């Protein structure tokens, strides 16, 4: 078999460029036990210029994972604990009057970093969420009458707790849509938890070393864009997204009354770019259906609106995505 020249070249390029993936994984695995899916999801977002929303009960190393990822890359990192009394200025910065210079000076907020950990994002009111989400979309912040571009790579890693709902401000659907992935973190396995206990009780807690520079990430993002996606894969992605909007066209009449609204075109874009990033992580220069299926849940789960009927029937978006994947023909 001979692979056409461009794909062969691309494969070779990816083999070289994606070498850092193993390095990052290795460094992260020093600190984080298990959570392979979480690490992969963070890598996907990093490589495809997206943002990630992590949801899981407390104590599942959400914050630690993000912290560790930031440590592995020589980049600026900010952690913002979202609280009900947080103000947009606390996030983006403000103008401060300098008596010495007799002028207003810009005091940039913690958002001027490469990696932002928005811890418990749903604890702050809508105006703070909006300020952050605007920065996520526009990649710039306006203080006073001056707009400031945010440094690249810029990645927001938000966490939210599904248990405590009292005193929280759930993210509106339109704002949720801006997160490329919503990753659900589950409990570790028994053996993994045993390792976690041992690791935490040892005298020296491992620390991840910086193995990558921001310019490497920007370079890798260019390579990810070059990953080949066949027309068949594009059609497969569109079929999946359209099945969330018109389930009756895919022999899923039972979901017609369960889905309030389907995935947006942004879902198709993110499915394609996340599939490319996943192929890159797997050291491939082309996307296969497995790549799409691997990231499908994380991309779609926060983009499908369920009706009250679905909630009454205990149908979740995961059930709907599973059924869609089992009904849409693989190319």
């Amino acid at each position, binding site marked *: *078999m001979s692979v056409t020249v461009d794909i062969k070249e691309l494969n070779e390029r990816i083999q070289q460029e994606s070498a850092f993936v193993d390095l990052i994984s290795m460094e992260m695995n020093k600190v984080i036990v298990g959570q392979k899916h979480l690490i992969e999801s963070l890598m996907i977002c990093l490589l495809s210029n997206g943002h990630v929303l992590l949801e899981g009960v407390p104590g599942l190393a959400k914050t630690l994972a993000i912290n560790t990822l930031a440590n592995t890359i020589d980049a600026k990192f900010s952690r913002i604990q979202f609280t009900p009394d947080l103000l947009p200025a606390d996030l983006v910065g403000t103008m401060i009057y300098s008596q010495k210079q007799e002028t207003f000076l810009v005091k940039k907020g913690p958002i001027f970093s490469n990696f932002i950990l928005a811890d418990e994002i749903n604890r702050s009111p809508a105006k703070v969420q909006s300020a952050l989400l605007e920065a996520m979309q526009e990649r710039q912040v306006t203080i006073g009458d001056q707009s400031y571009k945010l440094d690249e790579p810029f990645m927001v890693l938000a966490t939210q707790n599904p248990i405590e709902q009292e005193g929280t401000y759930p993210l509106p659907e339109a704002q949720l849509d801006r997160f490329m992935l919503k990753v659900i973190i589950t409990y570790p396995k028994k053996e993994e938890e045993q390792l976690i206990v041992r690791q935490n009780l040892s005298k020296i807690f491992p620390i991840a070393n910086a193995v990558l520079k921001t310019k490497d990430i920007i370079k890798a993002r260019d390579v990810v864009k070059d990953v080949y996606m066949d027309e068949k894969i594009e059609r497969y992605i569109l079929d999946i997204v359209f099945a969330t909007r018109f389930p009756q066209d895919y022999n899923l009449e039972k979901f017609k009354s369960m889905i309030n609204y389907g995935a947006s075109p942004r879902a198709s874009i993110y499915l394609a770019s996340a599939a490319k990033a996943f192929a890159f992580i797997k050291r491939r220069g082309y996307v*296969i259906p497995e790549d799409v299926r691997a990231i499908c849940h994380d991309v779609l789960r926060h983009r499908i609106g369920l009706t009250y009927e679905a909630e009454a029937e205990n149908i979740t978006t995961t059930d709907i995505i599973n059924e869609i994947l*089992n009904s849409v023909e693989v190319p």
Partner: protein
Amino acid sequence: MRRILLFGALLIIFPAIVFSQMMTIEAKLDSNKFLIGDQVKLHLLVTKPKGANLNFPILPDSLGNGIEIIERFKPDTISKNGDIIKLDQAYLITSFDSGRHAVPPIPFEFLRDSIVDTLFTDSVIFRVNTVQVDTTKKTIYDIKAPIDEPFSIMEILGYLIWGLIGLFVIILGYYAYRKFRRKEPLIKITQKPADPPHVIALRELDILKDKKLWQNNLIKKYHTELTDIIRKYIEARFIIPAMEMTSYEIIDALQHEKYLSDQNHSGLRQLLTLADFVKFAKAQPLPDENDFSIRNAYQFVNDTKLIEKIIEPVIIVKEEEMKGGSNA
């Protein structure tokens, strides 16, 4: 005193006398003699002041004494003279009894000073004559028998059609009832038994081979069709949704299938993996590899097809019968 009483009585009686003098009713026939069965008009004539409340009576179909009403006409105004109007309501009457008859007095109700009073017409006498037949000159014939008309199917065609429809509905209802009782489907459609999956797959592989797709540089189409045939076969043969599964998922699902040999596994892996390369990575396989894929597909289908075995019944012959048979 007497004079006063007389004057008072006159005051009460006088308006009634005046009122009744102003209102007259009359029954009148067009002719007082007519032949039996002939029809004449009976006029009820009313003369009354304008605004007087007097109603024409509603007469029954028969006035008694053999007098029958055939038709009723609407009341008509004959004349108007100042405040006095004359009305006429006519009835067409007949009689089939000869002799002297009388239209009985007909009552008319009217309202006077909030009191309903009744006026009656005089009875009207008339004569009904029979037809005199001179039997010496005329011959009396017997009644003619009914004319025989030839029988036509059109006479009963309507009944016949409705009868047949009714009969059909009854039979259909009975048939449906029997099917319902036996819990059988109403209409049994006998379908041609579907070909077994391997027959379909082998047939489609033959067609694909004859198309010579990869020989004509349609390599992607060739591998897409080849994998579709195999995935459809796997779906039907192993009852797994192979069309909705990726290559790795199919290989994984068949991993523990006991009917598959190592050779089948490796053949299937080669076929699907090569197809994935062609479909998604623009790979250009060598001619041998294209041919190898279809050979693997044939072998996979032939090795894994379900074969129906007819088990012959085993006849157990008793030992005694065998002995008896040998003795004989």
